[in-house]
């Protein structure tokens, strides 16, 4: 696989770098592969590079759907 985890952008730095936080653990990473990044965005982090932004709305929808599945069947 490609080990990658969600991280929150907490500071944008020069040279297309950023400081991200993974539940309080900080790391300097490259954001050269993404444009228009804002503080507070969540990104998927792989080998020190942010690969993609996480869409909070879609994330919420996926979870809602997962919850619904259970509610339907187990009801």
């Amino acid at each position: 696989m490609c080990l990658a985890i969600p991280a929150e952008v907490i500071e944008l730095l020069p040279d297309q770098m950023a400081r991200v936080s993974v539940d309080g653990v900080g790391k300097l990473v490259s954001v050269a592969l993404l444009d228009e990044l804002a503080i507070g965005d969540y990104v998927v982090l792989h080998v020190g590079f942010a690969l993609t932004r996480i869409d909070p709305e879609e994330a919420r929808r996926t979870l809602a759907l997962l919850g619904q599945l259970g509610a339907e069947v187990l009801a």
Partner: protein
Amino acid sequence: MKYVDEYRDGKLARGVAAAIARDSDPARNYALMEFCGGHTHAISRYGLEDLLPGNVRMVHGPGCPVCVLPVGRIDMALQLAAKPNVTLCCYGDLMRVPGSRGNSLLRAKAAGADIRMVYSTLDALVIAEAEPSRDVVFFAIGFETTTPPTALSIRLALKRDLGNFSVFCNHVLTPSAIERILACDSDGVRIDGFVGPAHVSTVIGTAPFRRFAQDFAKPVVVAGFEPLDVMQAILMLIRQVNDGRHEVENQYIRAVTEHGNRIAQAEVADIFELRENFEWRGLGQLPDSALRLKDAYAGFDAERRFALDDISASDNPACECGAILRGVKRPAECRLFGTVCTPETPMGSCMVSSEGACAAHWSYGRFRDHARRKTA
């Protein structure tokens, strides 16, 4: 952890498991292949098998870049590392992978080679900058996910004029491997559907999988690597199979789009080009399945710079990885499994990384073999 813990919730899992039990047709079998080691890992690590009905079987695919790296390429890296002026930088995963004659980077390091584990290509650049008298070679492996970071490192090395930096490129492409497995489908177990890669798809998008869904009439669901993602993808595949559909669906919609990350694709296209052929451990030579540096960047290509010759070396002939990857056999059916071949002394690709089918079964799931034997 936000966007992680929610997708590991045991309560939600029971709901999805119930939905899978309800929707799967007891009169038929479902053989679903998860291509990626990330999914294999989630399935084993969280014990998902225990939550699936008996007629839903997961076949573990070849999607781990460490596992598919042929022995010969490790031997080439060992040759590089043996050069007195070379500092070889690599990801931690590669340190223990055995080359020929039981040699590995870890052993070579113990014997005096300058091999350093890095977390990122950026760390390799830092080393190259700090030690201008050393030839710093980055041992690049990985699928589409890991290629853009390598591409960027070359761009940065160019910008910073780091003439002592180069890349030993082993980047491979997932679609070619999936195609090979589908083409072999006739001699293997029929695979009813694919769980498509998560992080590879953040870069390439879901579009490239459309071809497989159409040409081979197989459903594909691109899914995240958290256990609930995998469960939901299984449910989506079962529904497609039941309906006779074969579409590309996107379960990992929070991170994957149809067309992926265009910036990353452009970086890769600028630096790399296709190799006509490349050997995959367990799958053999696959056409158009790997990348090399373009001529314009030849100076950064360690293979050219150090005039490395291709080495080909073969695995233990008793290894059943090929059959396991095609779903014909299970790890425990290999003669070498757990005797000669263990994660400490891997004989074949499936045992090399913790994500390989054999390693995952050995490290997390082998208690089930004993339980099975007892009840049988």
